[in-house]
């Protein structure tokens, strides 16, 4: 009897919770909550964008809540499961539970809302960004911030080495050659790295995609790490560390200190080239790095080498005011709404119309022209619902490979087997 009572408690707790989200009163006032994860600038910018809507609709208020970035997935899940779901959710294009939440019915299907509003997402946003927030053809979020993986290079180092600056469409072999010439070793110690890579998933995916490889098959039922294309891409990438010695190894990173990664090395002038998101631009400008941005080097036979790493805005299925929440999102992701992203130097806006204004905010000496020419190289891989778990399992299984202690074949094979287990519903 006790077990039955407890089971009843358990089942009722598993439901959508008591109150849902959004609050209003009899006087027609609507209060919405928007949840995001980022810096104070991010939170401030979201609030300012939401205020653009609420100024025109005084009966609506929107509060922006900032979750800790490291645990945002867990905190969001707990909020939803606990009945404290926000109305509007910021979802990421990478390593996000957006698709998982949508597949489990926790995010609204916005396809009909978009159609009713007469929105044409493919005209407003880069198509490579739009597909990142669709699952099985249904749109669950609207692109919000349009960051994607780009390539940074230190102009001063290139000029000192007498090398031409990278341009759109430069090849992998050119990249490796430049990295070798830019690596400086003094007294047996590398004082300047030609490049700095690690197992950061968006960078790895950008590289492998440019070599014509994919992480999963088109049906999202099976991992494809053990294909010749993927293994070749991984090998080319990891050779930068263990064959050419132009990039720090995991041990070298550890020597620099806890949590020092490629971004920090570039900002400190210790490496000439890195993959990173546009969020590094303000930091590198602040650190007086003379840098440029370009699309990453292209592998052989690939298409798309800049993985989308931005965010989208979705409506919670538990919101009491889904239409109002959608209207707020529509306003925030309009070219006017996204201009705040540019004005606050927060990120790249997803709205194509705002890109020229964003390009003008780049630091002196940093040109958008190379990226503009390569805008068709932005892509979003389609991830399965079990994205987070699958990526974690793959990263774990490839650890020894990236450490240089295991060959690519066995590592890729194990990663494929374990990823397939996740995709098939096993753990």
């Amino acid at each position: 009897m006790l077990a039955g009572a407890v089971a009843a408690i358990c089942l009722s707790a598993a439901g959508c919770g008591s109150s849902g989200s959004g609050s209003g009163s009899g006087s027609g006032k609507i209060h919405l909550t928007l949840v995001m994860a980022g810096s104070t600038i991010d939170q401030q910018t979201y609030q300012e964008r939401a205020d653009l809507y609420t100024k025109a609709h005084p009966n609506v208020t929107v509060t922006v809540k900032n979750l800790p970035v490291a645990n945002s997935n867990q905190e969001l899940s707990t909020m939803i499961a606990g009945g404290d779901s926000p109305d509007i959710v910021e979802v990421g294009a990478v390593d996000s539970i957006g698709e998982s939440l949508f597949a489990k019915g926790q995010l609204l299907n916005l396809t009909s809302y978009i159609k009713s509003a007469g929105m044409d997402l493919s005209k407003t946003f880069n198509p490579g960004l739009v597909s990142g927030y669709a699952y099985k053809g249904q749109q669950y979020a609207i692109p919000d911030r349009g960051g994607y993986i780009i390539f940074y290079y230190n102009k001063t180092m290139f000029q000192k080495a007498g090398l031409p600056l990278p341009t759109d469409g430069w090849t992998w072999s050119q990249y490796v050659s430049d990295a070798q010439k830019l690596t400086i070793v003094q007294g047996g110690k590398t004082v300047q790295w030609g490049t700095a890579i690690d197992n950061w998933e968006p960078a790895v995916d950008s590289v492998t995609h440019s070599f014509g490889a994919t992480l999963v098959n088109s049906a999202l039922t099976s991992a494809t790490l053990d294909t010749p294309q993927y293994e070749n891409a991984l090998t080319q990438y990891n050779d930068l560390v263990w064959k050419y010695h132009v990039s720090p190894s995991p041990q070298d990173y550890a020597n620099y200190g806890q949590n020092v990664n490629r971004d920090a090395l570039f900002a400190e002038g210790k490496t000439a080239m890195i993959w990173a998101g546009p969020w590094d631009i303000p930091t590198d400008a602040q650190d007086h790095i003379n840098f440029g941005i370009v699309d990453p080097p292209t592998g052989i036979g690939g298409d798309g080498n800049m993985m989308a790493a931005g965010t989208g805005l979705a409506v919670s299925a538990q919101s009491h005011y889904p239409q109002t929440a959608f209207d707020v999102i529509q306003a925030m992701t309009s070219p006017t709404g996204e201009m705040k992203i540019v004005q606050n130097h927060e990120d790249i806006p997803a709205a194509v119309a705002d890109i020229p204004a964003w390009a003008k905010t780049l630091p002196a000496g940093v040109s958008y022209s190379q990226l503009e020419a390569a805008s068709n190289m932005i892509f979003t891989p389609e991830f399965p619902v079990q994205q987070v778990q699958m990526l974690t399992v793959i990263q774990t299984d490839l650890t020894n490979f990236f450490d240089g202690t295991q060959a690519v074949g066995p590592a890729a094979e194990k990663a494929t087997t374990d990823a397939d287990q996740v995709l098939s519903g096993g753990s």
Partner: protein
Amino acid sequence: MTRRRLSASRREALAFYAFVSPWIVGIIVFLAVPLVVTLLLSFTNWDLFQSPQWIGLRNYSELLFGKSSDFWLALRNTAYYAFILVPLNLVLSLGIAMLLNQPIILRRWFRTAFYLPSTIPIIAVVMLWSWLLAPDGIINEVLSWFGIHGPAWLVDPGSVKNGLIIMGVWGLGGGVVLFLAGLQNIPRFLYEAMMIDGAGPFRRFFSITLPLLSPIILFNLISGIISATQVFTQVYVISENAQNPGDLMLVPYLYNSAFQYQQMGFASAIAWVFFMMVIALTLIILRSARRWVYYESKAR
């Protein structure tokens, strides 16, 4: 009409329950109910959002026999860590306590110095040791003086557990304090009597010190095992969400299953298997304690 008065014993009993009720309520709400709920959840596929479906023993089967289950890897890593760290800590803390029990100058300063590291927040400890144990860090620098090429302690999957053990030894101050208290409670006349009989220091240690400290050893052993098997923060911080296979431990594995992958049912199964293992280990230790733990009160 007269009011029936409660008897004195009944009043005393009611007072007892009134005073102990907060503790009882806390035990029920924060321990008993979660225990029962997690047990039930372990037989479901609850993912936080949808209603849990009963799946019987599938979670346990997947955990123990699944092809890609990391349970056995996590168990091996946890066992390696716990069964090296705990005995090491016991021996070292007893040795340090015995040294600190000697009449040396600045004894109080030394006692404070040995205890302080155990009070430092764990995150700060991890940051400090990440620097010390870096491939070119101080530890490897000292080892190189002796011709030893130290590994990348917290990076190489093969050495990261050893790095965590070194980190764990640093916090043995709590055990030192307990042993010190025990040493100071040993009556001096026992040592004097043995000295009169001609017993040397080793004999006095094994015949007096160890037996009289055995209850504290037992306590430190059990609490050490429980604490070591539940290691989480160090692993999570060092290997970025426990992605290094060399230091995947049971609790980070449980945490990832629950909160990264929203597999609450599966995580509950991990929790229960882990719980039963720790209970079994504790019972084995307690059973064995009959042979080697000496209680002075029982002897009288």
